[in-house]
């Protein structure tokens, strides 16, 4: 599903150049649930941004579902993001004047799905995350865990190839975190490919594979025995 070869990225900081990614090689198969770990400054967010086509690499190859991702125009990148990727953010990033349902329907809007079909689909995904009764609520009327579930529904609404979650539990207490991880695990059980960036050990162990990043290189890449989040809920 995802294939990365010798990826390099550096940022210019004034006269200095900060080499963030120093040759990443990495492959994700369909249906995997991968945790990307590392302390801050290890390059994990940069990697995620490149994977999410929000940033471009200096050199190296990136193939997503067989499509080479290179030299994209803004419009093309937007199209690919819309088609291939679903984003889950640490701070949820829901649009605060739109109801839960409208937030979930937003990626479909950019896919030019007709309004009625959009709402039906969005409702289906809201139901899946257990928030159908909250469809008309504004984000401000939801709890943190509920917000993240809306965000997950939104990420899935466009039926992307890969879900990218950037610290999805970073802003949640541990009980809610496990609820969210439980949901992510279940989505993964259905065959969705998910990448989770986290710096929390317990969250990482709820994935099926952990990739450790340190100073811009992968220092460890191992399959693990998945800890089910269900038991903590």
């Amino acid at each position, binding site marked *: 599903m995802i294939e990365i070869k010798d990826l390099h990225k550096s940022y210019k900081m004034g006269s200095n150049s900060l080499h963030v990614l120093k040759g990443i090689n990495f492959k994700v198969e369909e249906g995997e649930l991968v945790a990307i770990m590392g302390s*801050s400054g290890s390059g994990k*967010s940069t990697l995620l*941004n490149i994977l*999410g086509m*929000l*940033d471009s690499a200096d050199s190296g190859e990136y193939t997503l579902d067989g499509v080479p991702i290179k030299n994209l125009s*803004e*419009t093309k990148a*937007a*199209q690919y*993001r*819309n*088609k291939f990727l679903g*984003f889950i*953010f*640490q*701070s949820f*990033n829901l*649009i605060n*004047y739109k109801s839960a349902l409208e937030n979930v329907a*937003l*990626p479909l*809007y*950019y*896919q030019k799905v007709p*309004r009625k079909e959009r709402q039906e689909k969005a409702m289906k995904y809201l139901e899946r995350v257990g928030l159908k009764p909250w469809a008309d609520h504004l984000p401000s009327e939801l709890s943190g865990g509920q917000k993240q579930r809306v965000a997950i529904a*939104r990420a899935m609404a*466009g039926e992307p190839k890969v879900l990218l979650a950037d610290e999805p539990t970073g802003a949640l207490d541990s009980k809610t975190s496990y609820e969210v991880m439980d949901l992510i695990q279940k989505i993964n059980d259905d065959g969705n490919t998910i990448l989770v960036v986290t710096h929390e050990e317990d969250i990482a162990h709820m994935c099926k594979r952990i990739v450790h990043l340190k100073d811009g290189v992968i220092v460890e890449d191992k399959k693990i025995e998945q800890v089910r989040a269900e038991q903590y809920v």
Partner: protein
Amino acid sequence: MFDRDIWQEIFNTLKTNKLRTFLTGFSVGWAIFILVMLLASVNGMQNGFVSQFNDDATNSIFVRPGTTSKAYGGFEAGRRIQLKNEDLEYIKQSFPNDIEYISARYYANATARYKSETGSYSVHATHPDHQAIEKTLVVAGRYINEADVINKAKVAVIGRKVAEDLFKNEDPLGKFVEFNGLPFRVIGVFTDDGDDNAERRVYAPVSTYQRIYGNTNDINIIALTYNPTYDLTKALEFSERLEILMKRRHKIDPDDQAGLYVWNYAEAFDNISSFTAVLKGIGIGVGFLILIAGIVGIGNIMVFTIKERTKEIGVRKALGARPRQIVNLVLLESVFITAISGFVGLLFAWVILAAVGPMIQTPAFSNPSVNLSTVVTATIILIIAGVLAGLLPAMKAANVKPIVALSDK
């Protein structure tokens, strides 16, 4: 553009920032209000001027004799020039293609009497063509015709005021009225847009008065209208030819300004037209300058809005919004605020003009109003203004980098 979601978003941003939206919109609404009021005022001024002039045909020329101020052709200065019937015939034959109507005018004063009523009026003795030149409006009976001139008939067309003074409630048509003791039959009554004084006037056949006053063939003024298809240049060129010819005929120095006056309405009209055109230009200029301030205001607020919504725009881009869609969103919002507030200003100005305009009727200023073309122009200006105001902020929004917008660490 008519996407429900886009409008929903626009209304939401406007609703959450009511005061800000109002203050921004006010500047544009005010600008349009001032622009429309300025244009309406210029319009009113123009109306005033035109109504002062439309008393006469706008293509008329008057040839008036004077007294020479220069010696020329063996004559000394100070010679009085007298126009005769022959001059009129001469002009007629010299410029058959240039002239539309031509008439002599012979001035006299008459003490009129009908039964016990008397009054003193000025008599203009003319040819039938004079009706078209002076735009005399005959409301009852008829004007002087060729037969009256040939027969030297003692007939008169009297002004509305004259009829009121002498005949009170009687119908004057066919009645005989005495002018300086001579009976004239009233054949028509006229009104005049010009003023009341014009309606205290009497028209009679030129030949009749020339006979009464000693069988002369003198005339005071030759009034004519030129071919109405002529533009200003052609009209001026014609009156110049006419002046040269008449001066030659009467042996007046071509440079002698006092000997003969050829007065062309087009010239005066042109001066007024260019005067009001300049005023209009100033009005538009000032209006636009004010409008620019309004546009800058809207642009300013849009930049601010974009800054506030950077994160939201980042999210949208992450979800697959194309730069164009972001630009459209911002532009539409900007055009919307501009257009709505502009229309409010326009409507406000229009209501005031509709209510107050018709009441203003002074000689130099009458019925200030805006016409449809002004409204259409203002609308186009507003939409362009909205696009201009939103363009920079929209580009800024489209260039928002999702990673920068979303980095919350």
